[in-house]
């Protein structure tokens, strides 16, 4: 474990930029911490934090100058790894035939700054879906293979965090090039650095650093242990797959359906939800056609539409499908849970439907 001081964070940013990476990370926009382009550490939400609960998110000033003193916001890294709206190809009429024009994309190299442990797990889950299986998604692969990841071990948990329950944090254990832990002391603002890859080591060599002492190593353990104790939510995952499989007809599904807006927010903020729809469009002349891919949600009627109608016409069927997929059928399909405990679906549900509460209700009155 190494140590860099606060000023060296700027040097780390400059080094990554010099190596051709475009920096993306947390920054304040429209009253929230979103992920967007960063030019320097000044773009980070320095001295800010967030307060989150079901259906509410508020920025608050901190009493210090913490650089990473907040948790996850409305965006997740999937917006960069597979864009929300993407043209797949164009076609042009050519007499009686037509010509495909494929998209030759130049994708810039991204360095993701401030990725949290739950998000590393989410990226790993999407890797499984998009590039580690039988069918490889070229859009995702192109973006994913160049990404440099700077992780931050969480120094605080939000009111909707439950990574401890999902075994996905708050400490990063894999999937990063460099992992930072912020140590904020009166006269000494510094970060511990763990190196995850050779590429990470190479970058760190260009940033002034020193070996961490035993006390500093212990501080990291204290910080993540404290964060783990702050989890705003818990989810008991014991036997969860069979629990949900046994309870397709539980009355709780009707109760949650009475509140569910079927708006789709939970699926779009979820860092693992990966569903898309495809739209084919033609122009007025009929000489050009395009195929577009867009993020989709299992909460729309179109999602389950087959000839004759939608299979999941009730909101009960749609909520049950989403939650059962996330927590149970995902395990059969991909070998892990589809939930990483980031809490976004709870915070960003306009009416505060809480996945941990729904599981508790089903478990309680089985």
């Amino acid at each position, binding site marked *: 474990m190494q140590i860099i001081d606060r000023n060296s964070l700027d040097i780390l940013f400059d080094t990554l930029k010099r190596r051709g990476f475009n920096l993306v990370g947390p920054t304040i926009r*429209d009253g929230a911490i979103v992920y967007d382009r960063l030019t320097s550490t000044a773009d980070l939400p320095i001295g800010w934090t967030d307060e989150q609960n079901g259906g509410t998110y508020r920025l608050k000033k901190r009493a210090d100058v913490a650089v990473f003193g907040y948790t996850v916001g*409305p965006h997740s890294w999937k917006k960069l790894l597979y864009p929300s709206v993407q043209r797949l190809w164009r076609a042009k009429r050519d007499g009686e035939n037509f010509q495909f024009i494929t998209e030759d994309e130049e994708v810039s190299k991204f360095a993701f700054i401030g990725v949290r442990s739950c998000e590393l797990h989410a990226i790993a889950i999407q890797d499984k879906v998009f590039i580690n299986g039988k069918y490889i998604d070229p859009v995702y692969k192109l973006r994913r293979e160049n990404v440099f990841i700077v992780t931050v071990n969480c120094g605080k948990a939000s009111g909707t965090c439950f990574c401890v329950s999902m075994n996905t944090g708050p400490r990063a254990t894999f999937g990063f090039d460099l992992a930072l832990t912020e140590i904020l002391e009166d006269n000494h603002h510094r970060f511990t650095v763990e190196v995850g890859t050779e590429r990470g080591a190479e970058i760190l060599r260009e940033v002034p650093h020193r070996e961490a002492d035993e006390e500093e190593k212990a501080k990291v353990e204290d910080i993540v242990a404290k964060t783990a104790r702050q989890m705003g939510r818990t989810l008991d995952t014991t036997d969860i797959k069979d629990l949900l499989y046994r309870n397709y007809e539980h009355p709780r599904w009707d109760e949650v359906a009475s509140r569910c*807006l079927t708006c*789709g927010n939970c699926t779009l903020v979820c860092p693992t939800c990966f569903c898309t729809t495809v739209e*084919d469009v033609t*122009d*007025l*002349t009929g000489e050009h056609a395009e195929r577009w891919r867009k993020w989709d949600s299992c909460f729309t*009627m179109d999602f389950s539409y087959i000839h004759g109608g939608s299979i999941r016409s009730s909101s009960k069927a749609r909520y049950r499908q989403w939650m059962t997929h996330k927590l149970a059928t995902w395990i059969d399909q991909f070998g892990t849970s589809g939930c990483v405990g980031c809490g976004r679906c709870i915070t*960003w549900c306009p009416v505060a439907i809480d996945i941990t509460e729904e599981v508790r209700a089903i478990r309680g009155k089985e």
Partner: protein
Amino acid sequence: MTRKRKPKLAVWKFASCDGCQLSLLDCEDELLTVVDEVEIAYFLEASRAVVKGPYDLSLVEGSITTPLDVRRIQQVRQASKFLVTIGACATAGGIQALRNFKDINEFISVVYARPEYIETLDKSTPIANHVFVDFELRGCPINKRQLIEVISAFLQGRKPNTPAHSVCIECKLRGTVCVMVAHGTPCLGPITHTGCGAICPSYHRGCYGCFGPMETPNTASLSAWWSRLGAKEQDILRVFRGFNAYAEAFRKESEVHEK
């Protein structure tokens, strides 16, 4: 594919402000292509020249509010192969459907010097209540890109891409921060039909529901949350009594909040 003749386009007006049909003239970049592909046969906002029917595609704006409208829409339907209603008036009765919640005779007696000259219906109703409608395009006003999509789809004989899900999905695709969750601003987005491009939340305002109810609107749940955000019964009543007041889901929800 070669077409023998250009399809004939007609644009009809009923009770409305003309804003939706003007959306077609607003398509400045596409207008010349539109004229290349269709014959503008009846469009009084654009030209006095009128070509006789029948028409291949009729765009109908406005709601039915008079006995004459009731007869005229039948004629329009008979003269049209494909009839598309455009805008909140034609698809839901429009803002003028606020009369539907009151006694029309009281308005007439107060507003007009000679009420006996006024021949009107007691309700403003959407076109689909009177004739078969092939396709409804929502919005107050409609979105011009969606209008071009509907015309393009008609010309190619395909289904238009005009999803019926919530505005929220459009906000999320754009990366807009949710105004309800992050600012506590009441927003109709979760129950409103998408199509506008999620404009208001991107300017930090709640959605006004200009496109009417989405496919499966849970208005009761959203109203309950609005109350928690501090909206009074009167406020909730008024947001549902907008341009789409007479759309069934909005009408029923507004009636719940009426004293």
